């Protein structure tokens, strides 16, 4: 069975409204999430198949790729792992969201007065239950085909779904994962144009061409694993109680402050005075000089998205 040139199809199924499916994907396999009739949001989560404590993290993904990740971007795991778990190798629409949290039972009860209603948290939980995970293990979703934005006042909004029949996204597994797509349960929101539709799922064996679409991700010392943890085992009871033998071991503490004397010429002091007069960079010469140095350094040398304001 082959439905994509050069690729072997391993699995093909349809998930109906109100449902989702947990799928084991091995490194190198590709998951396609495809519209059957269009305008349907797909919530998605994934876990390291061999350690469920490593899971997709909207926060790191949003930080590295912005609010609308698309083709060429990665789905990152949470700190302290922070590894690319899957790569988006195709996206025929380009309207994805990692800003909104998953919809939940609480949300429909609170906003709409509907106490029993399809929602992405419960759908994810039910699909994940097949692999022994609990509702507490559900994490915020990658919302594929969810068309969103942020207005001038900084408030997020949901726009009309732009996905058409046959549109799809493809995710290449960069590690063995449990991938959990679901049909978003929000039928009384704009998310899926007020109608829930099935989604088609296909799993392919990835090809060299698929791998060629993935850029080399960073490999750093701080992408940690449980072997780096001081407590290596997963806590198995719910109660929290103090470890009497605990001694704090915070990184680089105590922080040692020292003075760095910088002799400035009259001209350089004039620049500082001018910068200070704008009121934007600090109140003292030292504050302005420190601001100038670090924002200069960020602009010139920092990797990844710049966090300093464009002043």
């Amino acid at each position, binding site marked *: 069975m082959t439905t994509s040139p050069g690729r072997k199809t391993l699995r093909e199924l349809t998930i109906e409204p109100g449902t989702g499916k947990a799928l084991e994907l091995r490194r190198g396999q590709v998951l396609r999430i495809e519209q059957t009739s269009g305008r349907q949001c797909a919530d998605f989560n994934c876990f390291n198949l061999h350690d469920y404590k490593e899971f997709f993290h909207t926060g790191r993904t949003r930080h590295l790729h912005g609010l609308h990740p698309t083709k060429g971007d990665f789905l990152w795991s949470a700190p302290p792992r922070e590894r690319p778990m899957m790569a988006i190798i195709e996206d025929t629409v380009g309207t994805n969201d990692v800003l909104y949290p998953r919809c939940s039972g609480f949300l429909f009860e609170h906003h709409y007065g509907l106490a029993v209603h399809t929602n992405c948290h419960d759908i994810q939980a039910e699909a994940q239950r097949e692999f022994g995970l609990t509702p507490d293990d559900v994490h915020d979703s990658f919302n594929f085909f969810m068309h969103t934005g942020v207005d001038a006042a900084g408030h997020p909004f949901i726009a009309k779904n732009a996905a058409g029949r046959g549109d799809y996204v493809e995710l290449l597994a960069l590690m063995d994962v449990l991938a959990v797509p679901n049909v978003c349960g929000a039928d009384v929101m704009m998310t899926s144009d007020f109608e829930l539709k099935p989604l088609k799922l296909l799993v392919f064996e990835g090809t060299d061409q698929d791998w060629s679409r993935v850029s080399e991700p960073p490999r750093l010392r701080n992408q940690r694993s449980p072997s780096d943890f001081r407590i290596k085992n997963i806590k198995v009871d719910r109660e929290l109680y103090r470890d009497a033998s605990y001694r704090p071991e915070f990184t*680089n503490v105590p922080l040692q*402050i*020292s003075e760095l004397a*910088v002799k400035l010429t009259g001209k*350089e002091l004039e620049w500082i005075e001018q910068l200070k007069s704008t009121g934007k960079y600090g109140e003292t010469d030292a504050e302005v000089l420190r601001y100038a*140095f670090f924002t*200069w350094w960020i602009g010139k040398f920092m990797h990844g998205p710049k966090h300093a304001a464009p002043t």
Partner: protein
Amino acid sequence: MSLASHDARLKNAGMTTMTESTVRLRLNQQQLELIDNSIEAGESGNREELIRRALREFAATHLSAAANGKKS
């Protein structure tokens, strides 16, 4: 407008030139590590030189933009 012409404009406007002085930055060991790494990478000869380079380039961008009436 270049930083030099910006300075010349200030001079023509009758602003006095300030004399040499020392500014003391309070930095922790992590911040100094970043500075030292930049020096090791060949960006400057020493800490003071690197800070002054940053100020020069920062001022060139921000004061020129301000002098040209751009939002800075």
